[in-house]
């Protein structure tokens, strides 16, 4: 069996779904952020796969690199915020951080 574009896209889609699932179901903020990384990496796989198989130009690779960089920046900020939450609430449970309500 040859590994083609579809396989990459399927992996990407599975990763995306898993990431979204993690974001929705996990309570721990760190795990939510990990789900987020899965979403971003699924996009990366798509970009690279399209660039490789679609006969497209370098743009796909560039896009993937940018996404990786931004993911790192976002994670840094998000972790800092989670740390601050821990200092204020003594836990990082997203559901229980609910001083503000509708």
């Amino acid at each position, binding site marked *: 069996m040859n590994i083609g574009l579809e396989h990459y896209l399927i992996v990407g889609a599975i990763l995306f779904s898993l990431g979204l699932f993690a974001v929705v179901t996990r309570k721990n903020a760190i795990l939510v952020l990990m789900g*987020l990384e899965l*979403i971003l990496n699924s996009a990366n796989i*798509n970009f690279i796969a399209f660039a490789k198989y679609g006969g497209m130009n370098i*743009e796909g690779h560039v896009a993937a690199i*940018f996404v990786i960089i931004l993911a790192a920046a976002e994670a840094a900020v998000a972790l800092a915020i989670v740390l601050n939450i821990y200092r*204020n609430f003594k836990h990082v449970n997203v559901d229980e951080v609910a001083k503000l309500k509708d």
Partner: protein
Amino acid sequence: MFSVEANFLDQLKDSIGLFLPETVLIATFLLSLILDLIFRKSRTLTGIVTAIGFVVAGICLIGQTGETAFIFSRMLVVDPFALFFKFVILLSGLIVVLMSFFSKELYETTEGVGEYFTLITGMTIGMFLLASASNLIMIYLAIETMSISSYILAGYTKEIRRASEASLKYVIFGAVSSGIMIYGMSILFGLTGTLNLFDINTFLLSNEVNMVPLMLSGLMILAGFAYKISAVPFHFWTPDVYEGAPVTISALLSVASKAAGFAVLIRFLKSAFIDPTLSSDVAWNTISSIDWQYIIAILAVVTMTVGNLVAVWQTNVKRLLAYSSIAHAGYLLMGVVVMNEIGIAAILLYFFAYMIMNLGAFYVVMLIANKTGSEELDDYQGLGHSAPVLGVCMTIFLISLTGLPPTFGFIGKLYIFSAVLDSGLIWLAVVGVLNSVVSLYYYAKVFRNMYFRGMDPPKEPMTFSYGSMILLFLLAIPTVLFGVYFTPILAWAKSSVEIFFG
């Protein structure tokens, strides 16, 4: 693969010339960062530097009037449309910086405010890039630049629990929505083989594309934008973040970040999905059979209805204004639904009005919170007497937000409604009008509490500094003045749309 063209350097030089306002902002960013390190004790220096930087950037923007060009290998577009939004963003940024000088919350609960102003500059750079981005990766970069700064700003008063909660919610919702957006972008890239909006447009015009993935990717990208403009169903963060964040940041998010979101939403739709050959200034034709008009009309109706209905039950003024800003996103989306230049011009005009009146309302909330330490509606009782100037100005802002004459908000709504009626969508205009009635109820609740309740016994009169009053008048007077004479702004908005580049 990557060859330097002969005129590449010339292009780069031209690009840098047209990148001047952003360059100035970047210089301001760096300068304020360094100054903050050196003069750690000064509490206003970085703010003043930022304000000056904004003014200089504004002057550079004026120099760009009428320019239309691609810069940096078609990564960015400089055109009057982007220019209008940049002005709105810059002006609201400047007003927020000035507001921040009077914010007690900011100065008393944080160790230093240096980074605060630096981050506002960073956010403004992101929004500038977003307003002129014409490449999917550029859009993503710009959104992230703006978002990362705003995540931190939302929780800037980090000792306050609700602020840190706000920033947590903001970062999680924001990161997820931008993750979904980038996934959508990757699919769109796969379908069309390019990241440039104009090339996507050309590709879609000349090739048959599978509808399902195109639709899916379009919706995913739209989700990212909808998050920024806080349209339903991506609005969940809005009330919590606006309530928890410092008032100044809520104001900035509600105006500037929404402006940037609308700029990119309109440009994305117009540049990528509108057939330029079949379109006139009266009606735009969408490529392929995706009915964007229908999708956005539903988005607009749901957004304003949810925003207005939920706002009715709010007891916190900041939260109330948060829902009101959701509702306003709905009104503004009505202009997008029209899908022609009249509609877009109406959006620009409304945005200008929205900027002045919404910043004004948040500013009054901040001044009151400075004195009473509360943003609860119940604590507004009797303020009409103890702070009459604030009461009158707040009434003006709220009447303008409702859209009653003779205020600027009325003119904005009038143009949105006439654009909608122009294109024959009478039902949409009627929905918008009924929503305005609902909004009147909760806005009236605020000035009802200020004037009709808690008058006896009379409270101690509050006093405010002259500086803060001048800024208040600078917002209140245009709200009324432009309600009667707004021709220059209308002309500006119209000309900004006429030369829509691409």
